[in-house]
């Protein structure tokens, strides 16, 4: 379209507008700085070299390994259970023969073997206190509480058949009177007193 084509003056305007550079306004930076303060942009941390990155992981790893090794080497040995467990005694001559015989016969082998316990550690001999401290005499026992006598419920009295009076009749007056709902009939006493 002819009208839409760029005219010479438009090209000049375009050239001037595109190439023009405005002068820097120091006051504009104040507004920009305020915007930056408000925005609080997350800035990237300075990137370090590869060895610095490696040390970041290597140092904690070395520390953990050293501490772990020291802990394992300096650990106290577990308390021995020797003496607290039953010890099997060396069988003497007769016992040895018996055992050999048992080993030979399959019936005796099936039987549970008896073990000879040589030493059993003594139980702690701590006195068991049943009475409170300072009391030596055993208090007398209270008499047994007697249970109250139980009440046996009586049998219920049998109820006879209900008999109605056959002659009984209802004397309902025949309602043939015209009901009066004026004050005189409804409240005669009040009207009379009044």
């Amino acid at each position: 379209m002819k009208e839409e084509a760029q005219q010479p003056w438009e090209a000049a305007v375009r050239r001037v507008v595109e190439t023009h550079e405005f002068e820097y306004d120091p006051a504009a930076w104040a507004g920009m700085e305020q915007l930056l303060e408000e925005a609080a942009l997350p800035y990237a941390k300075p990137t370090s070299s590869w060895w610095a990155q490696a040390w970041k992981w290597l140092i904690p790893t070395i520390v953990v390994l050293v501490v772990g090794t020291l802990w394992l080497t300096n650990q106290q040995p577990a308390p021995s259970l020797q003496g607290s467990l039953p010890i099997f005694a060396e069988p003497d001559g007769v016992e040895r023969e018996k055992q050999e015989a048992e080993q030979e016969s399959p019936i005796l082998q099936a039987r549970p073997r008896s073990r000879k316990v040589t030493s059993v550690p003594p139980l702690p001999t701590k006195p068991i206190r049943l009475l409170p401290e300072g009391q030596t005499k055993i208090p007398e026992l209270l008499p047994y509480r007697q249970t109250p006598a139980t009440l046996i419920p009586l049998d219920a009295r049998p109820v006879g058949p209900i008999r109605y009076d056959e002659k009984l009749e209802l004397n309902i007056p025949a309602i043939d009177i015209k009901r009066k709902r004026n004050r005189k009939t409804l409240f005669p006493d009040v009207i009379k007193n009044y």
Partner: protein
Amino acid sequence: MTMPNDHYKTEKALREACLRGERRAQQALYQCFYGKLLGIPMRYTGDKEAANALLNQAFLQIFKSLPDYREQGSFAGWMSTITFRVTMDYLRMEQRHRERYSLDIPENVQAISNIEGQLEAEDIFHCIQQLPDHLRTVFSLYVIDGYKHQEIAAMIGITEDTSKWRLRKARQLLQAALKSDYLDNDQTA
């Protein structure tokens, strides 16, 4: 581009310093590209204050997007694109409000004449800024930024015919305003 600060020898050094959040580097970058980028919001807004505010918004977006810059194409071009997008977003937002109230078209725009026959850029910007907002937008998009009517219509949410009509009207007004020694001399030359 001249580096305003000797501390940053190259553009890349300046960018990296900005990425680290150095305020001095940010100021240097702002100072470097202020004059160049201000022209974009200046030809789309009615006054310099609004243009400054828009440019600051654009620079904020630039600082935010700086980690995404992949050094493909010129840095100045990348910044111009961001500034243009920020300006267009502002215009789209403003247009809804503006069209609700008025689409008045003035009879004429104050004419500018120059003794020497060469119009200064400031005067041209002044004339463009005097245009009504809806006309100025279409004129700048078509004449200066080189968009087609179809693209303009899609960008600012108007029909193609409306875009053509607005361009015609803007041309009339601007031509009348610039009908001075400059245009006369240009035609005779």
